[in-house]
């Protein structure tokens, strides 16, 4: 089966959605999303049978750029994350009524297309193109369908766009620089380069800027909270669930193997930065008044830990990071969906205006609580597997990293439970909170099921990603 089929489905889906008209758009988009998910599962099957899932076609001769897609275990995992989350996200929006929904859903599928492409591309430039391409739909989604004051939103979204673009353009320069040496943008050719330590450092930094902004790591995170808050929930889900994983994935796939010397030399600084993000994000989250903003900062804290894990350059660090990426993708989508469910009923995201919901809807409360607990990595949820592995890898580098990074389990519990307490508990709210609809419930149940299943039995994913991570590690360690 051809790997590009998935991309084609998503792209065709985007057009079909646009042509389907406003009434049918969401259904068509959902259908294509499901089709892509189905295809990726079939693809996974092929991959597990040992097939080589790749597709190479010369695209541009001068400069030498190929349309090269390759799915190893890591890419497969990320592809699955993307294609599985996309229909879930689309499904979750069924309760909302968007103006001009044909464009809206078309953009979602297009974004999914670009993100899937980013995870699959094995040619540096193709990867870069997908990377940039994914920025445009989310820009419009946040801009046009977002909420809050239009001027404020504009400011936040434009800042986001320019900021992320700024970072990635330096990555482009780094790619071009390496192209000069390698004569090709193909990942395998770039791997063969023998760059000096100084060159590696600059390349590493150029990549770092792109990824640090995208992930985001402190102090490059200032776009995040505002955009998460202003974007429509679907956009926030796409951003936090999948898009920021693009940054983390890229660290593993591109940054570390291409500039291993710099990664090793300055390992402590980058791990430190990630951990600083954990603590900073957790502390800032404590005093957030807006539910979506709080989740944004919690996301900042979690990805800080994931990033710290990747920069350990150990198998555990990378593996834990990938596991945690997937887990976080699901849990954060769930949490933002919860915020949306509350918003649908109370028209507010201010935590202070909520409260007293539990007595009205125990079902919803339980699901919310489970997501909260998953987000604070309660053992038996998927997040624990990831977080444990990452923290373990950090402890291998230096026990203090694990201790400082581990504060996330304390502070995370603090802000999440505080939020939960004020949002859900207390005297029954005077405003009526209608029980969750079937759509809402189903979406949350699916997410929760995934979290618990892989929390208890992460082996399939571990087996999927480990060989490719080992390969990447070999690349990282090729020069000593």
């Amino acid at each position: 089966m051809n790997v590009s089929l998935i991309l084609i489905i998503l792209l065709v889906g985007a057009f079909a959605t646009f042509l389907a008209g406003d009434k049918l758009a969401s259904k068509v988009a959902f259908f294509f999303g499901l089709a892509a998910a189905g295809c990726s599962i079939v693809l996974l099957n092929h991959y597990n049978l040992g097939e080589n899932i790749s597709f190479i076609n010369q695209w541009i001769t001068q400069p030498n750029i190929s349309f090269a897609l390759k799915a190893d275990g890591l890419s497969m995992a990320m592809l699955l994350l993307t294609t599985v989350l996309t229909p879930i996200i689309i499904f979750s929006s069924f309760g909302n009524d968007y103006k001009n929904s044909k464009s809206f859903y078309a953009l979602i599928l297009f974004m999914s297309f670009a993100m899937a492409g980013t995870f699959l591309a094995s040619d540096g430039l193709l990867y870069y193109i997908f990377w940039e391409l994914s920025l445009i739909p989310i820009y419009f989604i946040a801009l046009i369908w977002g909420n809050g004051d239009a001027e404020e939103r504009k400011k936040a979204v434009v800042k986001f766009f320019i900021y992320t673009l700024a970072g990635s353009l330096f990555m482009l320069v780094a790619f071009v620089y390496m192209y000069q040496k390698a004569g090709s943008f193909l990942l395998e050719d770039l791997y063969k380069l023998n760059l000096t330590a100084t060159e590696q450092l600059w390349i590493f930094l150029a990549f770092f800027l792109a990824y640090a902004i995208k992930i985001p790591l402190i102090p490059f995170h200032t776009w995040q909270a505002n955009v998460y808050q202003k974007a429509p929930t679907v956009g926030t889900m796409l951003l936090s669930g999948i898009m920021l994983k693009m940054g983390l994935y890229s660290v593993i796939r591109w940054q570390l193997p291409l500039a291993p010397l710099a990664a090793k030399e300055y390992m402590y600084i980058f791990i430190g930065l990630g951990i600083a993000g954990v603590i900073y994000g957790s502390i800032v989250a404590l005093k957030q008044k807006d539910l979506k903003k709080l989740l944004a900062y919690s996301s900042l804290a979690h990805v800080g830990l994931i990033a710290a894990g990747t920069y350990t350059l150990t198998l555990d660090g990378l593996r834990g990071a990938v596991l945690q990426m997937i887990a976080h993708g699901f849990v954060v989508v769930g949490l933002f969906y919860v915020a949306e469910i509350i918003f649908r009923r109370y028209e507010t995201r201010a935590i202070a205006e909520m409260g007293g919901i539990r007595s009205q809807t125990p079902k919803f409360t339980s699901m919310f609580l489970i997501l909260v607990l998953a987000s604070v990595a309660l053992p038996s949820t998927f997040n624990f597997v990831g977080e444990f592995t990452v923290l373990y890898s950090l402890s291998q580098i230096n026990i203090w990293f694990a201790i400082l990074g581990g504060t996330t389990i304390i502070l995370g519990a603090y802000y999440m439970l505080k939020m939960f307490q004020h949002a859900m508990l207390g005297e029954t709210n005077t405003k009526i909170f209608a029980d969750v609809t079937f759509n809402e419930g189903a979406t949350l149940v699916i997410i929760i099921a995934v979290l618990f299943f892989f929390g208890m039995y992460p082996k399939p994913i571990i087996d999927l990603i480990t060989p490719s991570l080992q390969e990447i590690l070999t690349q990282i360690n090729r020069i000593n």
Partner: protein
Amino acid sequence: MDTNLALVLLFAPFLGFLINVFFGKTLGKSLSEIIGTLSVAVSFAVTIYFFLQINQTKQAINIDLFDWIQISNFKVSFGFLLDQLSILWLLFVTGIGSLIHLYSISYMHDDEKMHTFFAYLNLFVFFMITLVIGSNLLVMFIGWEGVGLCSYLLIGFWYKNQEYNDAAKKAFIMNRIGDLGLLIGIFILGHLFSTLDYATLKTAIAGATDLNMYWLSAAAFALFIGACGKSAQIPLYTWLPDAMAGPTPVSALIHAATMVTAGIFMITRLNFLFDLTPDVQSIIAVVGAVTALVAATIGLVQNDIKKVLAYSTVSQLGLMFLALGLGAYEVAVFHVITHAFFKACLFLGSGSVIHALHGEQDMRKMGGLKKAMPITFITMLIASLAISGVPLFSGFFSKDEILLVAFHHNIPLWVVASVASIMTAFYMFRLMFLTFFQEFRGTEEQKHHLHESPSLITFPLIVLAILATIGGLISLPGHSWLNEYLTPILPKLASAEHHLGTTEYMLMAIAVVGGLVGIGLAYAKYIKQNTVPTEDSEITGFSKVLYNKYYVDEIYDAIFVKPINVLSLFFRDTIETALSSLVFGLGKVTNEISFQGKKIQNGSIGLYLLVFVLGLCAIVSYLFLAQ
């Protein structure tokens, strides 16, 4: 067969939980009560089967289900270990658990969310079983955090009251501080020995030739911090008194008998590790002793009946840690068991009192209940005698052994522990006297409705009182069944001497006299003088400090909670704004340059041409004159 039975043991409560969660409302109250209780009873039955089996075979049962987490240098499997220690623990977890479920049927009958309550209790038992039977540290950790979660859920069971929710949150977070310690300990052990499995760990440590004592101690210490969190030791004990916000059966089950003993379980489980790190052991001993004393002093002046019991629990746990720190694991275990009996009994008894008084918990408004509630009175009296160390009751044996061990190792610790014991006797009987003797001090209406609790409540009380009386039999001085039973776990018991000398009898006498002195003092003050504790506002002097728990909560608040919140505000308002305006600032500066630049472009052809010519001159002069 064993595997399946073990799964039944584990999943019976979980099934109960699921049923109660999903169908609790449709099933109706009585069905949901029955299912909840039955599920735990099934576990208890299976436990007894395993207990009998292991008593015969002496063989631990090891069950590996599947690979769970994979780390580069080791795998963690999802497996169970049923050996003497875990089965012992299971016995009283499921046993007392069943009793408390039974008790709850009546106690919680009027609550509209009965099924939820039972669901949570079942879930708790499930996690507690996981904690106990996990074959490695990580599976134990699932249970460890799981019981913390259930504790959170149950403390905040009446979630409409935000103070209760605060207490629940506090419990969870303080537990998590300990959990971080536990995780760090796990990391170090994993790093050192490439395994988290108890059995392999034991062999690895035994077989290791050059142990890195520094890291070993660090691991032990980190694990101890975990135990501190769960078992409410200094400095992480403050959540336990607050946890009394939960329904009384919860206090009895989770916060007295089972969950809080998890720390002791873990340390006993890893005794082979702690034995190698004497420094950490001494820390444990000192922390235990100090906790015992501090909690006891606070307990002296508390007026809330459950708070007294809570501090008493902290104090008793301190004694157990003292024993652990002195290497006398079997003594600690012994005290855990007896404590489970009498403290559960006390809590349930207090629950019965509270039930009768419609929620009143302040002892100043009780009194004279012994006539109205004879069974409650008698059972609680027995339990109080047990905890005070009156001979022949179970507490006498276990506490005495702790004091004995302390005396042998370190006299100051013995003194501290003894003083704590005397205080225990005093405040327990203060509680008894204030609650059951003299005249009733509550309202007329309450007096009218005074009645003995229904049999579902009194039955567990009676059972527990009996156990509290005879529990000491399992480890009589000189001939200890418990020690024999635990020998596979604690190998050095095999070589231990069992003889009672004069010193031992002396100490026993001192302890008994101490206990009686405590009781006597309480009698003198509250019966003879008929004192009733003063109103909160009138408490002065040192007792005010004690009444306010040494202001520890306030200090923690000032040192940790407030600074973090201030920091959060600072980050949110200052740093975030600064970082954000830094980025916006770049844009603004560029924009400003643009604005200024517009002035240069002033529309005058003269200027344009002038710049043209100047540019030309500059280029020509650079190219030709500069060279």
